């Protein structure tokens, strides 16, 4: 199973691999190399789910054709069905990325696909990029043995091992932690000493700086059933980010983002491996925080700082009782570290900010599409039933794609039609030079037309690395 043991089995998947010695590792030497050598995305893998509905079918990984010259452009050309129902596929990742560029023989070949609700972890062999196959399943009981559940963010760590943020203990309560898999996709154990954190969600690491940052959602038993203001008032949702010693797996510093930092979800360092700057989106407060290492700071290890730099104001809606928050559910940074993109799921907005000066983001452009306030409410006659949610950007930063499902139970609260109609995947053309976004009305992928019934669509990945999974050493 180990991808490091079968170098001769490697199937070149993009031009980049032809340029290098065959025994070099996966990915790209630098973020700029990814931009130059990656080529246009031709396929996407998209988490697709039926959990929580009455559709008698398991969740699946959709393979979407993104090649404009293909006859099946904008179609789901393959579906990797998983063996069980009830998983809630959510986030996923590769067994190897550019952080292992130096590891000879390692391939970016296996997708690690956790079930958020089931705690089941699937390994999909994507050697054949258009027809991936399920290779292995780690059952929930094996995960619970480490008193962890609710797997979320998957990153490879250099040398072929895999780290998964886990949001709860075996009972769906706090604390969460991290589960480590070895390069044969067996559970190695807990990565961190238990008790380092209470809440967990997303994480990102910057190995050259020996730092990892993690964020907080809440206990699985809190967010699984749906969003409840009682839980906000009770302090059951997170508002902290944690800075870790990457080698030791221990927390060095915790920053409480306060009332304006409620539910910090997606967290990203800049791609440049030297950088200590990053951003985190506080979903409920609908703010973006910039964090950075303050080299002039004194006071022991407390050297990271965080400051709110973008504030999305709630909006009044005549049919809603209270001002509606944007609900900033996803952010990403372009590979050239020039733009921060994000989605305000409730408002119905995708946006891009110039972060050339990360302390002072400058709004470049936005698109009002879907959601509660979106100016565009249908594409190609297909009514949009939810706002932009998970986003993914092309390596060259010229095409931004997004899906519309957040989490099945939260969808049901805010956009109940999403379950009835299914999700869509949409695209905007980005002009990085001018800093503009333009909706591509020719592009639509519709999960409402899946054979077993309408499905939800969540996270998007490219076969050969993307802006939200690749890390550089």
């Amino acid at each position, binding site marked *: 199973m180990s991808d490091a043991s079968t170098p001769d089995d490697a199937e070149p998947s993009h031009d980049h691999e032809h340029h290098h010695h065959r025994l070099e590792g996966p990915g790209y030497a630098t973020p700029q190399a990814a931009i130059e050598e990656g080529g246009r995305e031709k396929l996407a893998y998209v988490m697709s789910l039926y*959990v*929580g*509905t*009455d559709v*008698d079918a398991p969740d699946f990984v959709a393979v979407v054709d993104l090649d404009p010259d293909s006859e099946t452009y904008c179609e789901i050309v393959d579906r990797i069905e998983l063996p069980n*129902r*009830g998983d*809630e596929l959510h986030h996923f990742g590769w067994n190897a990325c550019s952080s292992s560029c130096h590891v000879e023989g390692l391939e970016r070949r296996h997708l690690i696909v956790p079930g958020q*609700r*089931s*705690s089941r972890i699937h390994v999909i062999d994507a050697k054949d990029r258009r027809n991936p196959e399920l290779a292995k399943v780690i059952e*929930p009981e094996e995960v619970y043995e480490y008193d962890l*559940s609710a797997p979320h963010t998957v990153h490879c760590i250099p040398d072929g091992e895999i780290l998964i943020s886990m949001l*709860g203990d*075996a*009972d*769906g*309560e706090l604390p969460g932690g991290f589960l480590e898999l070895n390069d044969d996709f067996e559970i190695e154990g807990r990565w961190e000493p238990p008790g380092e954190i209470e809440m967990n969600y997303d994480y990102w690491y910057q190995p050259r700086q020996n730092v990892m940052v993690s964020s907080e959602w809440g206990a*699985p*038993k809190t967010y*699984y*059933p*749906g*969003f*409840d*203001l*009682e839980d906000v008032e009770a302090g059951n949702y997170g508002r902290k980010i944690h800075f870790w010693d990457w080698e030791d797996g221990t927390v060095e510093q915790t920053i409480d983002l306060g009332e304006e930092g409620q539910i910090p979800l997606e967290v990203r360092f800049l791609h440049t491996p030297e950088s200590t700057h990053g951003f985190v989106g506080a979903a409920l407060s609908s703010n973006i925080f910039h964090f950075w290492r303050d080299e002039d700071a004194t006071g022991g290890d407390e050297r990271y700082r965080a400051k709110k730099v973008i504030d999305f104001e709630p909006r009044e809606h005549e*049919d*809603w*009782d*209270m*001002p*509606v*928050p944007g609900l900033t559910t996803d952010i990403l940074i372009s590979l050239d570290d020039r733009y921060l993109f994000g989605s305000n799921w409730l408002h119905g907005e995708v946006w891009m900010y110039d972060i050339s000066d990360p302390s002072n983001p400058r709004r470049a452009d936005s698109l009002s599409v879907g959601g509660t306030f979106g100016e565009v409410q249908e594409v190609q006659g297909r009514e949009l039933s939810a706002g932009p949610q998970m986003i993914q950007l092309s390596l060259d930063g010229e095409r931004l794609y997004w899906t519309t499902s957040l989490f*099945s*139970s939260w969808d*049901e*609260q*805010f956009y*109940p039609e999403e*379950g009835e109609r299914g999700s869509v995947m949409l695209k905007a053309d980005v002009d990085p030079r001018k800093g503009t976004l333009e909706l591509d009305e020719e592009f639509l992928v519709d999960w409402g037309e899946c054979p077993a019934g309408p499905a939800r669509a969540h996270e998007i990945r490219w076969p050969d690395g993307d802006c939200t999974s690749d890390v550089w050493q």
Partner: protein
Amino acid sequence: MTSHDVTLEWPDGRTLTLAVDEDETILGAAECDGAVLPYGCRTGACGTCSGRLLEVEGAERDADGTIDACAVDDAIAYRRLSRALKDRHRAAGYVLLCIASPRADCRIAVGSSVHTELVDNPWK
């Protein structure tokens, strides 16, 4: 082994009556019978499998029409803590079918729409 008749009722009018042993879960019994019910974690944490008690044999109803809370507690035994349910949900007769075993004959509303009743859009 004592069993109880559990009648599942879907929104579209379908019903299914199962004899569920006291040591099996209602979800497990339904699966053995080939019935499709929504579920997620199977540990009582996520609420995806929620059903709502419509009737418990011999139980009185409160003034607001809900089944007496004591009767709800007596009708269902849990093999783990029902973490996904808050007190208000339990009082209203919601049941996590993945960890619930019957202790009385009962009728339960099932299907994904039951789960959506647990929380509203707080802004609307």
